């Protein structure tokens, strides 16, 4: 005990209360009381400190939001960084800073923040979506697809369905841009199931189906739009294109005529309409035409194919079968030419088949060797495709 160590002389001189205060148990009690008082004081100080920091953080964050909304990304980044000085781990501050950094095109830094947030909350939809966008912009397609999928199935703070659809639409765009058509079609089918009959969305989906080369679904999406909005130009053009690609030329003609009537400046649709009409006019296999007209169209097609053959300067070696046993297309055309007249066709029904078969072969081969045809040759090629199943 301390009093036992005390020099007796000194101890005698000390007043009684001071001696008492030097007892170790008493000192411990004094320390405890002192500690409690200081802890309470520090608690008050800490409350003040935290309140001030919170207020500063909120103030800078509000400024940052205003700057972000005004697309002043530089200022927003500074504001959010300042806000983070006072609340380093604040999720919202970091997320908004990442958004501002993305706005500044500083995707590397944004990515660092987002990855940190992703570690904390891997199921945050917005974080996944932003990471997907960054990965997409950096050409990391597989990673982007993964983040998009996470975003689609993640939790969203509000407007969950709308944001998921938005994420899926972005994913589809990415897939289409990277020619992943089958995956894009799958995502589109999933998207279509959630969209309902909303004309605007159906129109957008129709356009995407067109890009994904799924013309049947594109047509049906456009038709849903047209049910509600009969004069929707984009839908008419899309439906016309889808019908055209499906070989439904009368239907394509119908939609495209309506589109041209509404939007005369739509040259693409006009060209397509022209081609559809040409196909319809030149197709000798149409049911509603007379025999004479059919024969005339065959003769015309045969002559056009001959011109195409001459113009394309197809090599003599090009044949319908093995080179050694089959004559070349030019030879075949030349040998058949004297027989392909309207009169001969009337006498020999099989001649029409042979003549048109040769026409289609010539158009196919010339399109391979000399490139995609235009005008009447393209119409003949489309007619060939249209009747491929019948050949």
């Amino acid at each position, binding site marked *: *005990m*301390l009093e*036992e*160590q005390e020099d007796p002389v000194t101890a005698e001189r000390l007043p009684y209360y001071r001696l008492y205060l*030097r007892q*170790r*148990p008493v*000192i*411990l009690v004094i*320390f405890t009381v002192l*500690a409690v008082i*200081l*802890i309470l004081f*520090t*608690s008050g*100080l*800490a409350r003040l*400190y935290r309140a*001030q*920091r919170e207020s*500063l953080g909120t103030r*800078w964050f509000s400024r940052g939001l205003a700057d972000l909304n005004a697309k002043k990304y530089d200022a927003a980044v*500074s*504001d959010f*960084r*300042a806000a*983070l*000085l006072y609340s*380093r*781990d604040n999720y919202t501050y970091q997320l908004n800073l990442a958004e501002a950094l993305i706005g500044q095109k500083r995707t*590397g*830094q944004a*990515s*660092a*923040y987002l990855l*940190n947030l992703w*570690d904390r909350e891997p199921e945050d939809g917005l974080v996944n979506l932003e990471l997907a966008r960054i990965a997409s912009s950096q050409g990391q397609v597989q990673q982007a697809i993964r983040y998009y999928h996470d975003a689609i199935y993640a939790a969203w703070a509000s407007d969950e369905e709308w944001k998921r659809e938005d994420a899926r639409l972005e994913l589809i765009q990415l897939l289409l841009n990277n020619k992943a058509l089958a995956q894009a079609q799958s995502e589109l089918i999933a998207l279509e199931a959630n969209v309902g009959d909303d004309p605007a969305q159906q129109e957008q989906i129709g356009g995407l189906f067109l890009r994904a080369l799924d013309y049947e679904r594109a047509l049906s999406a456009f038709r849903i739009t047209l049910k509600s909005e009969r004069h929707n130009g984009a839908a008419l053009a899309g439906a016309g294109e889808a019908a055209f690609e499906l070989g439904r030329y009368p239907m394509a003609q119908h939609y495209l005529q309506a589109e041209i009537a509404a939007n005369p400046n739509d040259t693409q649709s006009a060209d397509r309409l022209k081609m559809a009409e040409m196909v319809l006019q030149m197709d000798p296999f149409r049911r509603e035409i007379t025999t004479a007209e059919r024969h005339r169209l065959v003769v015309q097609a045969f002559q056009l194919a001959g011109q195409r053959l001459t113009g394309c300067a197809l090599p003599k070696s090009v044949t319908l079968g093995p080179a050694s046993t089959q004559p070349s297309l030019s030879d075949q055309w030349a040998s058949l030419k004297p027989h392909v007249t309207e009169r001969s066709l009337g006498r020999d029904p099989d001649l029409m088949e042979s003549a048109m078969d040769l026409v289609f072969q010539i158009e196919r081969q010339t399109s391979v060797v000399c490139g995609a045809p235009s005008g009447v040759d393209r119409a003949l090629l489309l007619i060939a495709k249209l009747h491929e199943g019948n050949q």
Partner: protein
Amino acid sequence: MEWQAKSETAVLPETNGSPQASPGMREHSPLGLWRAAFREDRFFLVLSVFIGVFSGLAVVWFRFAIDWARLYLLGTGVHLTPARLLLAPTLSGLVIAVLVMRFFPATRGSGVNQTKAALYIYNGHIPFRTAVGKFICSALAIGSGFSLGPEDPSLQIGATLASVIGRKMRLSRDRMRLIAPVGAAAGLAAAFNAPISAVLFVIEEVIGRWTAGILGSVVLSAVSSVVVMRWYLGSESLFRIPAVELRRPSELIAYAALGVVGGLASVTFSSGIATLRPRLKALPRWTQYFQPAVAGLLIGIIAVLGAPQVMGAGYEYIDQAMHGQFTWEFLAILAGLKILATLLSFVSGTPGGMFAPTLFVGAMLGAAVGGAEHYFLPHLTISAGTYALVGMGVLFAGFLRAPMTSVFMVLEVSGNYSIIVPVIVANTVAYVISRGLQPTPIFDLLTRQDGLELPSMEEQREEGVLHVEDAMQRVKGPLLDADWTLDQALREVDHMENQHLLVRMSPNGWSSVTKDELLQLAANGKGTVTLGTLLGTELVPYLHPDHPLETALRYVDRWPVIPVVSRADFRQLEGVITERDVLERYREFGEG
């Protein structure tokens, strides 16, 4: 065995400093238990907890003070106005200089050396004014943008509080000497939020030697202070730690490269301090009123020119470097500028610590090396954050020359033990380079510049230690056995001069006897009595070959010959040692 046990425990420091400690049965009575509970050694442990609590609170206030100083002096945002960047450190520098020169002269520098001096020179005495001065001046300096950190001042504040408490408690001199490191550990642990690193640093740099007697108190105070600090400021670390992993062992080469860069940077840093500090101190006294202000102005200029990151402790920028927020070129520039800013701050005599700047430079260098390696060797998969983390340890090992702390600091901060191999590799390389190019560690250098000579753990590590086996001699004479009769023994030593003879006792132990004593006993008619009976209680202590030679010094003046026996078989004699052997060996050692 008894002697051996005594000799083992004798080398340990006294753990019971109270002469009134009640032994045995007295402790079991209620009054005895009550008194035992307040015995100085036990009371010291309780006191350590209070020291930890008070130091933790002081560090919390210190943190508030620094943050408030920053807010009011530099502003609340990240983009500070040039006027503030220039004026805040310059004017603060003037105020600090007046405070230091007029009122708190002991607060210059980091505080680590002052604490060490208190331990070794001033019997643990640190005036309370030192803590007050350190608190005010360091908060002002760090808050206004001087490139200094709060850890070393916290260490000194903790040590001062402990010293004041010790004085008020009228602790014994031994306890008083030890109490400053206890407070130092508490202060550092709270400031750094890393109790293990704080304990290790205090042992490595302040106490300078491993001593079990104080370890418990140091740990208790460190843990208590960290608990208090976390209670108020949260348990989050100073920076967010990125995911760390070592995928391929070949990546260790990249970390070794970081060690080389860190080692060279450490040497540059410490050489700068070694060169500039004495020169500035040698300038006329009136210039010292302006040195901090000039340093502050230069730091402000660096900030205005585009690197405000070098101001203050800079933990937020370490965090950003760890998360890939800067290009590797800018990181390298920041590391260089931070060394410059810290040099200016420190050599001007501004109070503040070097921990944070060291970590800053290490993190920037690490991330820069990582970024450069990624740029030139894109196949490397290690993140810049991992390099930054390892880089902090590298500078710690190379500049502060605390290798143990450097490793544990990174582990403690990251909480990831998979990083241990890269850290050890990089730190070792940096440490070896730094030690090779700058033989004197920075803290020793500073104490010598201040005209003091304090023990250093690094120097102790360098010193050779002599053992008993280095001085012992082979047994020349016959070895007597306790079962022999006196006549047998006399026949055995008949041809010998009078000398000390060792007797192997039964079942254990050794004794010694001279030929003259044997002859005298024989003259008394005890020729048929065994030596064991004659010498039964007169045992000689024995040593083992691996005992430090200083252990032998405790016995060689009382016993002319000491047996050196095997640890595996105490009856097997390895050699003998005498006072002359010990002194001769020390003389040879001293001559090199």
